[in-house]
């Protein structure tokens, strides 16, 4: 949310009354803006110490879609109307005998096709209103203009220029002028180099740098007004003494173009000799289309009292709603043809209003959110947890009861932590990679819970041994068949760290959770069992040779994992084997066929790994003790929860 600093004394003068900080805070709260800070105390203290101090300010946060509240002029106007101290001002276009014109050249279509202007006549600035005028442009540039990317504003002393104006786009070497606050002329190419070193402008250069043509605005005498969105010219710059202001706005879309020119013109038209009057300009597009700018007409729309009442649980008459809307600067009257309908004229300063629901909200704000009735929805529904949450909680409870400590590492990690440090190779088939992380800590979404557990142990090396930690949470892997090209998989993992590696301890933890899930262990002598889990020795670079095993699961009856499902959803995703380069499907198939040959079952699924971590792995994670680890997917163990509705599929 943008924060606007306004002069406290000026604002209270405009509001026609003084407020204590608390009173003003309350007013802001009800209206939907937020008093962030009142600098009065700070200023008084500085004055007491004899330090230089500015005038006391109120720093007010305004909603990001209320461009009409980005300056003291707009805030004061809106609050005065809200407090019923005045009616919403009516902005009017005052056409001169002969309207100034501006033409748009076809080349602008390549870079910034839309152009608008407006003229404010006989303006009288004070130093503070002048500063506010500059600040509003800056606020608009930072917000709706998206750092000048979408829209850029230039303001000029009209008396230094001669119409008509031309908005063109030219190759940078064909542009030469004296820019604001420079004493010499430069070509646009030169300027791009010079501004590279000027921080406040350097951040806008990318918007046009690589374009073959740059936007540029000239007057009749070929004098440059602006090179949007970078800089204005020195020649036409406005000062405190400027009487007649020419506003130019360029944009990549017409909606934002109009919003911005309207806001600048309407906000500062109050300083014109005839307040709230704006002189239009005729803009001629290359296709001959002529637009009279700015278009400050209001938009007529209707809102139904019945709709507003049903949304707010109020029973207001149409007249009452209309008068509440007046307080929100919306011109409103009851429709002569339909008493339920309120005709609303949305002023050009309220582009945040799209729909009847926005008018409903303004009614509710004017009524007071905190004055609304408080009811309780009668919606009667059945509570229901997700199957995956129930299963996860079961594992968490059992393991905690078994003496293990739950930890909560981050889901994002570095590429090395997820691969190299676990002696795993990235085959680019599993891990989801981030494009714009701010630090190397966040390069990939983990495909294993092990890095987080090992980092937690590293940070807790001083904890008395043994350290036994677990996590039950999601990893994510690529999935070409899914719309978002990925899916989460709920894993459970645990690491034991002590002076001896303790394989049998993590094995015991696995046995315990399987016992709780009523999955029996399959031994060599019970290998014809129809349901259960077993370990099968494997070579895996994450683990110590001879101390690693795959965990296999043989589902009961109709297996949830058929052959075809498995090729879509390899349960071994993210395991070392897959990352080692053999591809996920191949890896699972190979594992399954190996299991088939030994155990004569076609349905066995590899669900995870168990073993003593390789000494090079614990070394990478700076753990000075041996560790045993266990990680497996919980997906095959989910128990379906009942459907809430009978007609659910």
């Amino acid at each position, binding site marked *: 949310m943008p924060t606007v600093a306004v002069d406290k004394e000026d604002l209270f003068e405009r509001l026609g009354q003084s407020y204590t900080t608390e009173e003003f805070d309350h007013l802001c709260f009800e209206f939907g803006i937020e008093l962030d800070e009142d600098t009065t105390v700070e200023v008084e203290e500085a004055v007491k110490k004899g330090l230089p101090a500015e005038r006391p300010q109120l720093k007010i946060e305004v909603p990001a879609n209320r461009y009409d509240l980005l300056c003291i002029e707009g805030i004061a106007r809106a609050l005065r109307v809200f407090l019923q101290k005045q009616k919403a001002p009516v902005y009017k276009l005052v056409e001169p005998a002969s309207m100034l014109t501006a033409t748009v050249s076809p080349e602008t279509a390549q870079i910034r096709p839309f152009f608008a202007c407006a003229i404010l006549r006989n303006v009288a600035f004070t130093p503070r209103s002048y500063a506010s005028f500059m600040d509003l442009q800056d606020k608009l540039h930072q917000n709706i203009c998206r750092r000048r990317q979408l829209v850029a504003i230039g303001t000029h002393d009209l008396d230094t220029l001669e119409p008509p104006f031309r908005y063109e786009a030219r190759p940078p070497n064909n542009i030469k002028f004296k820019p604001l606050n420079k004493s010499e002329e430069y070509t646009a190419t030169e300027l791009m180099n010079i501004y590279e070193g000027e921080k406040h402008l350097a951040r806008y250069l990318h918007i046009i740098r690589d374009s073959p043509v740059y936007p540029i605005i000239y007057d009749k005498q070929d004098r440059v007004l602006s090179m949007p969105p970078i800089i204005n010219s020195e020649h036409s710059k406005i000062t405190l003494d400027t009487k007649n202001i020419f506003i130019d706005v360029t944009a990549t879309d017409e909606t934002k173009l109009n919003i911005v020119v309207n806001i600048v013109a309407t906000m500062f038209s109050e300083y014109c000799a005839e307040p709230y009057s704006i002189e239009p300009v005729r803009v001629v597009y290359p296709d001959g289309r002529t637009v009279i700018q700015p278009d400050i007409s209001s938009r007529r729309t209707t809102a139904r009292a019945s709709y507003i009442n049903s949304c707010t649980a109020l029973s207001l008459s149409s007249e009452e709603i209309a008068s509440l809307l007046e307080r929100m600067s919306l011109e409103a009257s009851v429709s002569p043809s339909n008493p339920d309908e309120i005709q609303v004229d949305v002023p050009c300063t309220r582009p945040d209003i799209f729909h009847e629901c926005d008018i409903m909200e303004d009614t509710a704000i004017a009524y007071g959110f905190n004055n609304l009735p408080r009811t309780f929805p009668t919606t009667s529904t059945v509570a229901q947890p997700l199957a995956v949450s129930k299963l996860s909680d079961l594992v968490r409870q059992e393991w905690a009861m078994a003496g293990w400590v739950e930890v909560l590492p981050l889901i994002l990690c570095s590429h090395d932590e997820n691969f190299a440090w676990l002696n795993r190779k990235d085959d680019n088939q599993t891990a989801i990679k981030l494009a714009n992380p*701010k630090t190397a800590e966040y390069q990939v979404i983990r495909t294993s819970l092990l890095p987080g557990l090992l980092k*937690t142990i590293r940070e807790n090396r001083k904890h008395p041994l043994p350290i036994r930690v677990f996590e039950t949470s999601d990893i994510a892997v690529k999935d070409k068949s899914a719309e978002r090209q990925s899916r989460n998989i709920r894993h459970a993992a645990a690491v034991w760290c002590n002076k001896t590696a303790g394989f049998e301890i993590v094995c015991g933890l696995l046995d315990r959770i399987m016992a709780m899930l009523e999955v029996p262990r399959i031994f060599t002598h019970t290998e014809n069992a129809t349901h259960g889990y077993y370990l099968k020795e494997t070579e895996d670079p994450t683990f110590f040779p001879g101390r690693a095993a795959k965990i296999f699961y043989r589902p009961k009856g109709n297996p949830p994992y058929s052959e075809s499902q498995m090729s879509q959803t390899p349960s071994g995703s993210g395991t070392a084997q897959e990352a080692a380069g053999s591809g996920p499907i191949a890896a699972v198939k190979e594992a399954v066929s190996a299991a088939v040959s030994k155990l004569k079952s076609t349905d066995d699924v590899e669900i995870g790994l168990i073993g003593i971590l390789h000494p090079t792995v614990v070394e990478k994670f700076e753990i000075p003790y041996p560790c045993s680890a266990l990680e497996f997917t919980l997906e095959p163990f989910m128990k379906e929860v009942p459907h809430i509705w009978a007609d659910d599929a």
Partner: protein
Amino acid sequence: MAEQLQQLILDTIDREKEIKDTRTLTIPGDAAPATSQEAQLVVQGALNSLLSKEMVTYSMQEAFAYALTQEGNDIADKGSHEAVVWSVLPLKGQGTPLSIKDLKQKVGDETAKIGQGRAFKNGWIAKEGDGLVKLVQSIDDTTRNELAEIRATGTLAAGEKAIAELRKRKLVQQKKLLWFSAQKGSNFSTSLDKLETDLTAEMLQSGAWKTAKFKKYNFDAEGIPPNGGALHPLLKVREEFRNIFMEMGFAEMPTSQFVESGFWCFDTLFVPQQHPARDLQDTFYVSDPPESLSPPTDYYEKVQKVHTVGGYGSIGYRAPWSDADSRKLLLRTHTTASSSNLLWRLANRKGGFKPVKMFSIDRVFRNEATDATHLAEFHQVEGVVADYGISLADLIGFMQTFFKKMGIHNLRFKPAYNPYTEPSLEIFAFHPMLDKWVEIGNSGMFRPEMLAPMGLPDGVQVLGWGLSLERPTMIRYGINNIRTLVGHKVSIDSVEKSAAVRF
């Protein structure tokens, strides 16, 4: 030995009625009475044992004794500086006088410097030419003798004046010496029963518990911590939130989708494509996989239309539309992406729309600079109620009940802006400790531009609210730095010690 000493104390008291001064005792195995501090501490140990059985009582006394400093000990071992100097010089007339330089080399700078002066003063040595010689055949090294006596007895027969002189020379210091007077206790006896510390199975079997004497128990001592594990505090708070939702009849929404597309995370929620939330500075984008598959065509077209030209009574954003922005993959910035997907499915389910109350608590991601209160990952708690004809009053009333279950009774609502809710309400609660209103969550009614393209029937309103799981947890556990709550830097100890959550 400990028992022998206890027996000695009991016997001595039995014989002499009391022990006036424990320094008169001779600890069994020692040659001399227990006059040193070390010996008295051993005696105190024995007295404490007897005291716990209430066999004796004792009182502590203080005396002062003298002990040698490091330098004093050195002198007692090797002799005084002057004696050392004297010892290395040749007797007058019996050898080459020792030059000052050679003396320093032999005995060291310090001894040479201090020793010379005193040896001259005592008339032990004299100067001869450039060197020094002994004047006397033998000396009496009084300093050393006195120090040796103090070391052995803690005092000096020569009296306070001599001691004061040695203290001035920093060879001797005063030390406190504790000693004790012991009397009979209420259970006094000369027979030292072995006291039992614990009731055992053998005692129950043999009946020995009936006659055994038990050691007095120290109820101030802490018990042994149990060996159990622990659940993470943040997830304990998550459980409490889940319970609150379930108590109110909410079903859990599936959210197992960290990666979302611009379409589901923003477009479907009527977040404009040029909205700052979609900036690289705020959102993690995915580089691999490169982009999402096409969203459901019919729905996609409706969403695009409501953004670009409006519809359903809305004028829309009337801004350019980018298919590429819709297809961009990103880490969800809110779980509302999942809610939106679920609401769309709900609108299009076979049996038609049914009213729902749903919740989720899951991880979301923001590409923000991290600090004490912000991490790149946090948990969002979200609730959604969809039904015909529900209102803002229902939302506010519902919030009141929801937060009351968390012990928050005083709420007020501020109008706010959120692209997908209208009205949007920020929820503030009065924080008694901070003595001010603090924002605790966001809520609102989903916009028609979001709901209508999904195909939800007319008249269905959807209320939604969200808050972070971390914030109430930090308040609950008094945590100031989020890194001590979430992530690998959290101490296991703090997980083990975090209290149960009872709002």
